[in-house]
């Protein structure tokens, strides 16, 4: 045995974007066989994300984000607007353990692929639906993406500088990966239950509901105090300094947090600012909070003369909470991340070799495998239909002739 599932689990992944595909990707990391189904017209819209390359450059195979969250999957094309396409999904569902979808509510029903229909074919099938705001309720048809889900979960309302009312969206569309992580967790639980009961089930996961717990503390606080505090920026309620400071040079930002008076004395010492530690305005935490603007100004003045690397080295050597605010290259070369060989290099057709985030959980006896590339559009259609459905080459060729499958996009479209 080399992986968690050892090839014993098959997943049919009808999802698009990030949240749903991440579930399939994590299943593939565990050694499940994951068949990603796309349409040659309505292919996964994340293939078009961030790319403005012309058609002859095959832009749909050059999406950094698609190529990340679809790793390790087999790529199959099927036209779900065509009854034979729907029929083939049913045949694949009959030999699968899991089906992942994140269409808008009601779309699977319209395809005739609702859970009741599929469970009648395969009672062991576990299906997960991941609508943005839920499959029922007055706002269930509202359109949501990672950023808008993040806003409706209350995260955006907490994100802003302490001295301005402008709100900001996070940098990583957090609603998407969090939806995917919850979805993976749910499927693992449902598989565990199926081993005991022999039956599958339908799981509904509203992405916004997966993210709201992350601000649970603020939600409880609003009930206790009857008010909602404005965003605090980089500052802390009790501690100072607690912020982001500019060092010498371009794009050189330092985070520094002192959680005690001893921390502050050590930080002042490490930066050669012993006079700050004895300044009566900065002696105790309450003093420093009361004079936080003056303290931050002193730190910015001093740090403007110090190289970022040097400041980080001095402060962390003193056991303090400090780090560079990492832009992309900093994350890729972070010594701790590199020492644990977190990133994996993958050579993917069309785009070549890049580093991708590795699997997070380290399972020494059944390591996760995040090193297999994402499929090209329809790359494995013939192989999958031949092996899983016993179709002949003629039958497969007929499907392509009728436009039910294919390897070329019927039109180019953009991300949504």
């Amino acid at each position, binding site marked *: 045995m080399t992986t968690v599932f050892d090839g014993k689990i098959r997943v049919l992944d009808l999802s698009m974007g990030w949240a749903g595909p991440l579930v399939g990707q994590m299943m593939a990391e565990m050694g499940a066989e994951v068949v990603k189904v796309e349409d040659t017209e309505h292919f996964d819209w994340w293939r078009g994300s961030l790319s403005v390359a012309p058609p002859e450059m095959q832009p749909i195979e050059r999406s950094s984000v698609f190529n990340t969250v679809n790793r390790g999957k087999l790529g199959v094309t099927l036209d779900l607007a065509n009854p034979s396409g729907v029929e083939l999904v049913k045949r694949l569902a009959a030999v699968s353990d899991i089906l992942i979808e994140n269409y808008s509510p009601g779309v699977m029903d319209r395809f005739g692929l609702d859970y009741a229909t599929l469970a009648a074919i395969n009672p062991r099938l576990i299906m997960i639906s991941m609508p943005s705001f839920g499959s029922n309720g*007055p706002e269930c048809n509202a359109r949501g993406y990672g950023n808008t889900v993040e806003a409706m979960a209350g995260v955006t309302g907490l994100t802003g500088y302490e001295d301005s009312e402008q709100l900001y969206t996070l940098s990583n569309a957090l609603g998407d990966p969090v939806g995917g992580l919850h979805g993976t967790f749910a499927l693992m639980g449902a598989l565990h239950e199926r081993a005991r009961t022999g039956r599958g089930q339908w799981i509904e996961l*509203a992405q916004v509901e997966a993210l709201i717990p992350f601000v649970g503390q603020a939600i409880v606080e609003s009930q206790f105090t009857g008010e909602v505090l404005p965003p605090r920026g980089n500052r802390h309620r009790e501690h100072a300094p607690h912020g*982001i400071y500019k060092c010498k040079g371009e794009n050189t930002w330092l*985070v520094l947090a002192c959680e005690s008076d001893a921390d502050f004395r050590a930080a002042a010492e490490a930066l050669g600012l012993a006079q700050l530690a004895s300044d009566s305005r900065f002696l105790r935490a309450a003093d420093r909070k009361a004079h936080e603007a003056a303290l931050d100004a002193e730190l910015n003045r001093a740090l403007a003369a110090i190289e970022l690397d040097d400041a980080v080295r001095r402060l962390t050597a003193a056991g303090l909470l400090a780090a560079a605010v990492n832009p992309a290259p900093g994350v890729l070369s972070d010594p701790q991340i590199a020492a644990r060989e977190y990133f994996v290099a993958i050579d993917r057709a069309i785009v070549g070799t890049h580093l991708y985030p590795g699997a997070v959980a380290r399972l020494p006896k059944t390591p996760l495998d995040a090193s297999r590339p994402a499929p090209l559009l329809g790359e494995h259609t013939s192989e999958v239909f031949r092996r899983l459905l016993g179709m002949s080459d003629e039958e497969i060729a007929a499907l392509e002739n009728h436009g039910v499958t294919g390897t070329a996009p019927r039109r180019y479209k953009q991300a949504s």
Partner: protein
Amino acid sequence: MRYSALSDVRVVDLSHFIAGPYATKLLADMGAEVIKVEPPWGEGARRLGPFPHAAESKPPERGGLFAFLNQNKLGVTLDLKEARGRDLLTRLLEDADLLIENFAPGTLAAFGFAPDELLAKFPRLSIVSISNFGQDGPDRDSRLNDLVLFARGGWTYPVGEKDREPLTPPGSLAQYVGALYGAIGALQALAARDMGLGRGQHVDISLLEATVATMIYETVTFQYVGAMRERAGKRFAVGPFMIVTLKCRDGYAGLHCVTDKQFESLCDLIGRSELYIDPRFNTALQRMVNNDALLAIVEEFFLGRERQWLYREGQARAIPIVPIPNVAEVLEWEQTKARNYFETIDDPILGRVRVPGTPLRLNSHRPAPARPAPTLGQHNGEIFGSRLGVSPTQLEQMRKEQVR
């Protein structure tokens, strides 16, 4: 909320603060029995707010965060520095499937519970360790807080105004991400055991790596396009799209306008359909080049409208626009109400509090009301006495000695 999916799973939970306790909350909500083991003085999160009254008791039994994160768990107290405490923990582990912990690396071994030895002694047990940086590496023992985690993991650099310092994300969001990876890791170890491996293993989760894992725009996209994403103010990023938070008459609204179709609908919404064929904006590339001019037009329109109007009219045209709520408004959002998402707990210390419910609906199943978080040592009698057979006299003696 409880489901039955994991009703045959027993978890011994040595974790504290957020990343460990949220992982075990996920397991408890799915039906696992979670025995939360705290030192006799309580884990650190009991002393974190929010508290309902300005003058909370000292030391506090619990605050709102603890009450939320530890629902549905059984609570016992043990002093692992004492022989009797270690002995009772060993007995709890005898029929446990999972041990979850988020101590600093090496702490568990220092208590006499080296992971390798535990796995040898209890072959069915898996251990999930959630730590700041993982169980090895040069920074294994370094300190970490939310500010550092976000910054180092790449979330902070692209957020905020271009001409001032980057803006950190709020709260402890990345710790919850780490918790999810921990909960998944726990079930991965169980699945591996039950599907053929036959034995447990020690799962290692690094909060820093979990944070990086959710930042694919920076790490992977940077390599593909060869350019760093810089802070773009109210914009998510500079690009051929408009993902922005815009001021409106009564607050802020979020707009996600990416496709030609969404742009056409946006032009209709703002009553400027000529913009759709305007050569400055009629392709994705042009909208990227002339993003400032386009944004200025959209901004002015939003400024004169109310959030709900923009939401209704935008969504009616299939444009993803949302009225950005504060957390109190999330509690009152009709959608969460219609789905009975928030759950009222009747907490023995804090009273009635509404907390986020489980996001998982299995077979549309309506879950039973949650059990409030345990008071300190609430289930000592039940677990040590009834289950492990410690006599009432011994329990009383232990209480006096504060071993538990």
